[in-house]
């Protein structure tokens, strides 16, 4: 059974560009959450989506947006990239909106130059 898959695994972008990160949850899971992990820190919550609806939003600027598709996969979009957006972006999958177990993907390493 496939786990949480994220693509791409690594990405280099220039300041001001736009980026789209993708996540496919575990089969049967309907909730996807996104986290940003800057080097040397713990992950920070960005968004949660459940059944294609936004269920939570962290303290991130409007440059960050996300959506969830009918097959429960999700995209995270970041506009007008800044150097400070360089981080590991993690996707977490769970079966429900409020659960005690979340499974994390391998992450996308974004470098903004």
């Amino acid at each position: 059974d496939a786990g949480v898959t994220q693509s791409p695994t690594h990405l280099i972008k220039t300041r001001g560009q736009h980026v789209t990160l993708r996540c496919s949850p575990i089969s049967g899971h309907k909730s996807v959450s996104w986290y940003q992990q800057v080097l040397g820190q713990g992950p920070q919550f960005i968004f949660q989506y459940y059944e294609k609806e936004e269920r939570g939003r962290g303290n991130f600027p409007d440059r960050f947006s996300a959506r969830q598709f009918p097959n429960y996969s999700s995209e995270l979009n970041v506009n007008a990239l800044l150097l400070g957006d360089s981080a590991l972006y993690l996707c977490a999958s769970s079966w429900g909106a409020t659960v005690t177990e979340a499974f994390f993907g391998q992450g996308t390493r974004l470098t903004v130059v």
Partner: protein
Amino acid sequence: ELKVEQNPLFLSMQEGKNYTIYCNYSTTSDRLYWYRQDPGKSLESLFVLLSNGAVKQEGRLMASLDTKARLSTLHITAAVHDLSATYFCAVDSIGNTGNQFYFGTGTSLTVIP
């Protein structure tokens, strides 16, 4: 905002020794999570603690939760090199529509032969 603090931030210990990592959090929560992260990798779930007094053990690791003190501990017994990694604790905040995890800053553990 919910705060999660871990100490120590860095821990270097010899093989065979015992040590404890502490996790304090700032608001009432009955749910506490421990994750392991190897360099450049995603988060691996170690323990899910769901009630006051919960204790769980897996191999050389044992986690406990005291919700009244808002404290969790991760105890390492007779450390081995394979335990070298960064360990995160996390608390979840349950809203009306979903839940998000708040992570500590992490404890970077190095076990020296």
